[in-house]
């Protein structure tokens, strides 16, 4: 049972991180490689701010969320939008966005590595985690917040994309961007908002993970990026519910491997999962199938 609780906590962090990526990739078709760097740098700015003044829990989270949204919005404005405008077709744009994202991601990562000399950093906060005991299970307050936030935002976003008018517009862009634009969907504005939302989620995940672990390293974002990709592929691109399921499945699989004493193989779980899913069921668990001719 304690393991299940740990899985829920780990899975919720994965979920918060992967949701932003899934939202952006599944709707406006951008695989944002700078998502991991956004995540890390939001927490890093939180670290810089709290090393000046001590802040309460919520204030640190708010700082990270705002920074995350700002970084993602800037990335969209300065890199992805110009690329989309200059590309001849979707295929060429995809590659240039991926490469541009890799370039953008290197900048905050290098700055953080330079400032911290690649050592982990944390927050100085008036908040102190307490350990709750429920039916003999131990759960820190941070983990409780993480689980509640992960589930609430995951389900909330799933329902929002499915039910709301904006969500409909977003899904329409995902299916056919040009037709959607013809029906009066403002692609540029919606893409901008989606990126900012995803960045805010990355910032939230960054702050919560740092609170939970005490400290994170600048490279943490890169590892999460590959895991988030595995989660999205597992759940199916364009399906928010699939992302929610994928996050907890990956967390469960990793915890299982860890408990069987194969600690050094944990990273191989997500890489192997990417492989298996892409080969056996490329559309993922809940994804729609795409038609291909070659």
């Amino acid at each position, binding site marked *: 049972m304690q393991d299940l609780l740990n899985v829920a906590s780990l899975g919720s962090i994965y979920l918060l991180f992967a949701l932003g990526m899934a939202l952006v990739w599944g709707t406006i078709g951008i*695989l944002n490689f700078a998502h991991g760097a956004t995540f890390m740098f939001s927490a890093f700015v939180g670290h810089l701010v709290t090393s000046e003044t001590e802040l309460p829990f919520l204030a640190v989270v708010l700082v990270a969320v705002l920074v995350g949204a700002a970084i993602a919005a800037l990335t969209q404005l300065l*890199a992805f939008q*110009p*690329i989309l405008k*200059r*590309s001849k077709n979707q*295929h*060429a744009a*995809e*590659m*240039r*966005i*991926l*490469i*541009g994202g*890799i*370039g*953008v*991601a*290197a*900048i905050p*990562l*290098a*700055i953080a*590595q*330079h400032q911290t000399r690649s050592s982990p950093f944390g927050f100085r906060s008036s908040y102190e985690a307490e350990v709750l005991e429920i039916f003999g299970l131990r759960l820190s307050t941070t983990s409780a917040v993480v689980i509640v936030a992960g589930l609430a935002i995951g389900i909330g976003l799933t329902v929002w994309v499915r039910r709301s008018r904006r969500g409909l517009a977003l899904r329409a862009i995902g299916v056919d961007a040009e037709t959607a634009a013809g029906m009066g969907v403002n692609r540029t504005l919606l893409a901008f908002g989606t990126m900012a939302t995803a960045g805010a989620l990355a910032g939230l995940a960054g702050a919560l993970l740092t609170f939970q672990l005490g400290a994170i390293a600048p490279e943490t974002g*890169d590892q999460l990026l*590959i895991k988030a*990709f*595995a989660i999205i*592929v597992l759940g199916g691109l364009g399906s928010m519910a699939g992302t929610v399921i994928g996050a907890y499945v990956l967390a469960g699989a990793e915890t299982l491997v860890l408990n069987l004493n194969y600690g*050094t*193989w944990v*990273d*191989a779980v*997500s*890489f*192997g999962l*990417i*492989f298996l899913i*892409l*080969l056996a069921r*490329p559309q993922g668990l809940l994804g729609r199938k795409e038609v*291909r*001719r*070659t």
Partner: protein
Amino acid sequence: MSDWYSMNVVLIQTTLTTLLLALSIQVPIRFGVFSFAGVGAFGIGGYTAAIAMVHLGWTTWPSVALGAVISGIVVFALGLLVQRLTGLYMGMATIAFTLIISVLAVNGGELTGGAGGLYGALGEIDTGHILAILAVVVAVLVWTETKGMGRRIDTVREDPELANSVGIDVVKYRLASFALSGVIGGLAGGITTLLRSTITPAEVNFHLVIVALTAIIVGGARSWLGAFIGAVIFVWLPTMISFVQEWEKVVYGFIVAVAAIYLPNGVLGVVKDLIHRFRTRQERARLAVLQEKG
């Protein structure tokens, strides 16, 4: 000249091995296959060569050759598995492959030296040897870039449906690009490892992918000459400008992002455009003179 050479021999050799690594990524991209498996091949080639020298007591060149052959076969097999994936899925699956290689190396026990890596595999390699190998590789690549072969490969990249309809076996070409990329990547890994005498799992990481991509994107993705320009810029820029040395990764991230947005065909593309424009102007002037004579 010889003074300059002996002072910069390490940099020259690094330029050449970086060029080989960049070529292993560039080849599949030129075939329209977004594969980063060349970096994984770098790891396989490096480890195979080091293992052959340290554990089997082989001499330099058989070790390097074994590394190139094995990484060629492995990457070809990978190609058989993943060749039906497209675009981003292919990119991420091959990045996952590359990172799995590094996990395997960590868990390889005595064979791979675990997380600490393998030491003491110092081969007898000088610049002449690398140049000779590079000459062979470049000769093969020039053959694939020019005349009929070049046009067929361009078609496979730009319009696979059209290529299929005019009788070009797209799948065969894509698989060939995997094998070629594996062999070149393996050569790069073997030579680099035996020059430095060590290889560690940490080297086969995401940063290496960025190094290779930077060289190609900045130089130009369509020709080996572009990769050469990129490798020269990449290796020599930090030694020229001390600001670049301190903020190396920030500068490279910035360069990659800017190149992805504004120079999709790299420096080589810009130069070719200028030459083309100059020639067109000359041609027009010549025609104008002819018309006046009437």
